[in-house]
Structures are given as C-alpha cells and as structure tokens.
C-alpha cells in the first residue's frame, strides 16, 4: 500500500503522456475533450451577457443602432470575418495533420492560423485607433468630433437622420463585445504559439493529440462568436 504507483495497466506500461490517475489514453482523451467542451459551454454563457445587453437595447432603441452603424467599416469587418474563417479551416486541418502524424504540415497549418489571428488583431487595432481618433468611445467619454460626424455620415445621411439620445450606448456595447472577443483572440494566440512549439518538438502523434484538438475547439468558438458579432455590429439596416 505504501507503493504509490498504481498497477492497473501492467501490460504495456504507462505511455509517458498518460497522467497517473487515468487508466488509458482513451480515457484521458475523452476526459480532456469533455472538459474543453464544458469550458466552451461556459464561454457561450459568458458572452450571453453581452448578447443580452445588445438584444435589449437594440430591440428597445433601434434608432441608436441604425444611426450608429454608419460609423463602422463594413469592409474591415468582412475582411476580418474571412480571416477568421480561414484560420478556422487551417487549425481544423492542423488537427487532421497531427492525427495522421504529418508533423510538418501540422506546424505549417498552425503557423498560418497564428498569422490569421495576428492579422485580425492588426485590423482591429486600425479600427479602434480610428474610432478613438474620432472621439467615438464608450459611455460618458463619448464625444464625436463635428468633422468626424460629417465625414462619416456624409451630407445625405447627416441631414436625414436625427441624432438619437444615448448614442453612446451602441459604442459601449460595441467596445465591450469586440474587446472581450479581442481578449479571447489574444489568449488564443498565446495557446497557438505554445501548440506550435510542442508540435514542432514532437510531443504529439496519432496516439496523443488531445491538446491540439482542444486548442482548435477553443479557436473555433472564438470564430463562432465573431460570426454573430459581424452581422450584429456591422450589418445593421
């Protein structure tokens, strides 16, 4: 009994990647997969708060959203959507490559995913700085400059639309949603880098590829949230 090593898997011994309290790699893989899915469930509900705030204000004050959407750059949003979809493809491909022991292909796919993630953040950065520059910030600090209003709205819209009260609420929600999503992208970048290192080092194989798949699942949920954010924020009207 003083012997702490457990001896259920005598035949064949323990593979090095198998943690002591699991009885088989399959059990470890299934546990990890269920775990990451439960985490994704919490992510969905975490974002649900922001979607709820969005829905409540959009439903009750559609005029704010109609007016505010002119300030968003649909092209940038669309490019970012495509970039994220591409990254989803490449990371799914990376999982396939690891499962088939194609180590170099896997690293390549992960690197492309990483580049896409970086591109997304760069575009986001451009959008954000532009907004700050025009004074289009959240809540109390919201103070769009007159030129900004004219520049964006143009003559036509500027005259037709009356500026609604509490316009800042849209930008509060916009920054909360894209900001929280951006934080998730940043976290994803960190994890993907770690996965590139581990894959290149040869940690993974057709026997053991859980972590890459878990990362991919996380990355897909980041993409999934953006799939909803894009029409909700950029494609109003």
């Amino acid at each position: 009994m003083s012997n702490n090593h457990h001896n259920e898997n005598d035949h064949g011994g323990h593979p090095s990647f198998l943690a002591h309290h699991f009885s088989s790699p399959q059990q470890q893989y299934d546990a990890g997969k269920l775990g990451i899915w439960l985490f994704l469930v919490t992510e969905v509900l975490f974002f649900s708060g922001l979607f709820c705030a969005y829905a409540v204000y959009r439903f009750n004050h559609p005029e704010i959203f109609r007016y505010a959407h002119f300030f968003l750059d649909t092209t940038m949003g669309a490019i970012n959507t495509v970039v994220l979809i591409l990254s989803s493809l490449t990371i799914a491909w990376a999982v396939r490559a690891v499962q088939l022991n194609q180590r170099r292909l896997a690293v390549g796919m992960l690197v492309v995913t990483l580049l896409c993630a970086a591109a997304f953040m760069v575009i986001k950065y451009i959008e954000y700085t532009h907004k700050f520059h025009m004074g289009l910030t959240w809540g109390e600090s919201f103070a769009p400059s007159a030129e900004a209003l004219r520049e964006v709205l143009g003559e036509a819209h500027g005259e037709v639309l009356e500026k609604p009260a509490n316009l800042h609420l849209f930008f509060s929600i916009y920054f909360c949603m894209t900001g929280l999503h951006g934080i998730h992208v940043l976290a994803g970048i960190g994890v993907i880098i770690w996965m590139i290192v581990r894959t290149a080092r040869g940690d993974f194989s057709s026997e053991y590829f859980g972590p890459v798949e878990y990362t991919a699942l996380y990355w897909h949920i980041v993409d999934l949230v953006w799939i909803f954010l894009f029409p909700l924020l950029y494609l109003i009207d």
Partner: protein
Amino acid sequence: MSTTNYLTCSKGWKSWFLTLDHKRIGVMYLTAVLSSFALGGLFALAVRLELFQPGQQFMDPTTYNRMFTLHGAVMVFLFIIPSIPAAFGNFVLPIMLGAQDVAFPRLNLASFYLWMAGAVFFLVSLLGGGIETGWTFYTPYSTTTADSSVVSALMGVFVLGFSSIFTGMNFIVTIHQMRPKGMTWFKMPLFLWAIYGTALIQVLATPVLGITGLLLIVERVAHIGVFDPALGGDPVLFQHFFWFYSHPAVYIMILPAMGIVSELIAAGSRKEIFGYRFIAFSSIAIAILGFLVWGHHMFTSGQSVAASVVFSALTFTVAIPSAIKVFNWLSTMYKGAIVLNTPMCYGLSFISLFGIGGLTGLFLGTLSVDIHLHDTYFIVAHFHYVMMGSTAVAFMGGLHYWWPKMFGKMYNEALARVCCLFVFIGFNLTFLPQFVLGTRGMPRRYFDYPERFQFLHQLSTIGAVMLFITFFVMFSYLLHSLVRGKPAPMNPWGANTNEWKCSSPPPFNNFDVPPPMENPYDHTNLVFDEKLGGYRAKQVINS
C-alpha cells in the same frame, strides 16, 4: 492496513501547497471556508449586537452597512458556495466513485488558488474601507457610491466565479469519465447525484455572474452606461443579470446539502434509502428548474406584471422536487434502526429547519403576499433558514460525518450532540422572531428601527450570541480531537458507500484495487464490532 495515509505520505509545506491530491485540496478548502465562516460570523454578530436597541449602539450607519454587506458577500461567495462542493465534494467524490483522483488535478489546485485570489481581493476591499453596496451590488448605487473598494470586491466575485466553474467542470468530467468498471450511474451515492446537479448549475450559471461582475467593473471605471440610468441604461436589466446567476446559486448552496442529508439519514437509519431514483432525479430537476425562477426576486422591482406572473408560476414548480426529497427521507427512517449519533442529529435538524425554510418560500412565491413581505425581515428569516439552517447545518453534519475519515480521529460525541441541539435552539431563537418582524413590516438592511420592533430584535440578538458561543465550542472540540481524539475506525457509522471501504484517513491512492461496486445503501452486511469501535463486513475478507 497501511500506516501511511494521505496526511503522512509526504511532508513539508510544498507537499501541501503544490499538492495535486484531491484529499489535500479538499482539506485546504475546508480550512479556508471555515475561516471565512468565522469571519462572516463575526460580521453577523456585530450586526446583531448593533440591532439590540434602536438607534446607534457602537457603530455609525455606514459601518453598519459595511458590516451587513461584508457578512453577506463573505458568507455567500467565500463560504456557502464553495463549502460543500469544494471541501467535501473534493474529498469524497473520487473515493465514493472508487477513482484515484478527479479528472483534472491541476485544474483543481488552480481553482483553489483562484479561491484564494478571490479571498485576497475581498480582504483588499475590506482593508480599503469595506463595501456598503449590499452583496447584491444593485445599480446605480454600486456604480455611483464613493466607495472605491467596490471594484476589488467585484474582482473577487469574478475570480471566485471562475474557481466555482472549474470545480464544477472537474466534477462533471470526473463523474462522466472516471467511474471504474461496475460503478454505474445508479450505483452512485446520492451525494454524488447532488454534486452532479450542483456542478451543472455551476457551469451553466456562473459565467453570467462573471460577465455581470465584469460589466459592473467597466461601468464603474469607464461609465459605459449599460446599467446606469443617468447615461440611458437600465438598472432593472442589471437585476436580471444578477439573479440569472444568483438564483441558481441558491441551488448551488442547497443541493449539495440535500445530498449530504441523504447520506446522513441513510447511514443513521442503517437502512436502504427510500426512493433512490426519485431523490436522484429530483436533484437534477431542481438544478434545471432553478434556472427558470430568477424573476421572483423582482416582483416589486419594476419588473413587468407579465414577467412576474410567469416567474411566480415557475417558482412553485421548484417546491415539488424538494418536497419529494423530504418525504423520501422520512420514509427511509420507517422500520430503520435509527442511531442518534451526531451526524444523524444534524440530519434531523436539517429536515425541520429546511421544512420551515422551504414552506416559508410558499409565502414569497405567492405574488400578492410577496408584495408585502418583499425586502422585509421575513425574507431575511426565510433565506437564513435555507442557507444557514439548511446548508450550514448540513455542512456541520457532513463535517461530523466525514471528520473521522478525513483526519482519522473521533471527536467527543456527547459534546457534539449537545452543540447540535444548541445550534438548533440558537438558530430558531435568532430567526423565528424575524418572520414576525417581517410580517409586521420591518424592512431589511435597516440600521435603526421604530421601538415597537425592539423586543423581537432582542430575542434575535440573544439567539445570535448563543449560536456564536456554540460554534466556538464546536471548533474547540474539533480541534481538540485532532490532538487528543481517539483513532477513528474505518467505518464508524456503518455506511456502505465507498469512502468507508478504505482506511481512516484514506491512503494516498484511495484504492489500489477499486472496491467491489455494490448497492451503496445496502447495510445488511455490516455488523458493529466493539473492538474496532466501528462497523465491519460480516465475513472478514482477507486481502
């Protein structure tokens, strides 16, 4: 029988603070939540003493407001929510399954440190002057009050939320994936069904608390206006956010307590539990129905009539599974061999206090009556009957039940039973008068009150002092038992769940070979052995 166990297998502070063993993590949680209970209790005592007479006794209104806020926040977030799942759940869940550990031991340790981080944030806000928003953080008070400690308290809530989520995730995966051969769903002890239901709520509800806390921090720091009416926001929307988590959280508190009581009653009656499947499924039903009723906290808050009516109807549905449990516990005792040991006393105490707590919920679910009772002492009494009278009493029951297993020592039974009785009396003395106070119109969170309420407040304060002394005695004899207690037998109560099939305290590995997976409530094969001071199987199986 081995001489090394999980307590003695390794030494040094590192072997504790960096441990991945679920039992040690459970013990660390136990220490932590008991300290929080003591801290929260001190705040409560201060509040009760201040209310002994109308007017100012020894603190000003702001200090009083901080006291009740901290009492609520510490008790809810640091004590009740993690108490049973994180401390006892961690300790017994894998052993009850016959597994070696939870699915993710590192995540388990991480969630303990997240708890610690949350506690530190609370301490920071305490040292920074405390918070006086009420534990509910209703806007716009919480976003406009001058107290800057609100942000650190909210950070604490956010971090504690993630601690709770990770614990829940870990338990769900453990129950799904780590059951050894032969341990089927319906051979799981009812405590595990309750923990499973709790974990579902933790995973599905707590993220909303996270985002609520985050939005509130952003609201306070950057004034985004989502909840602030001065900026076009909606304070009632905040209440929806808050109660979407905080009502299910009530079931995070009570479900595991019900699970413990199922164990206590079965072991104390030495009989197979009555209606196993009904109790098991009622846990899951409570977990799911608990999500549908949050609006009953908002009947007078400006919520629309339509929403209130729907929420009231849904609220009554939760009463059914709770009632089912109570009836099944009583039926379990029928033709049993009831032993009034300390855990069983706590079990019986739970049934009566939960009876009152649950039944008074009917007054509050009934819309027209709730209008009068809402935000009065009636509510205070009701939720203390559920949270303290039920959850904390079940926690104490669990503590006395598993104490011999956790530390291998027996406490003084006679003293423990006396304390159990005094907890019961002190508790009722504190909170029964509050039902009357509330119905007579005494609002909650009042620093001062009209003189006609004084007598009932005084009864309540006397009860609180009595409770405080009793808990002090309880902790004293428990600590004393660690040093001087008799060694505990393997199975002191004659229960048949798996944790009683390994030594007390359990070995590091729990089981070298998983125990035979039998009906966890079949006590017929166990006999009392005077020499052991506990129970053993009828035929000794030599291994």
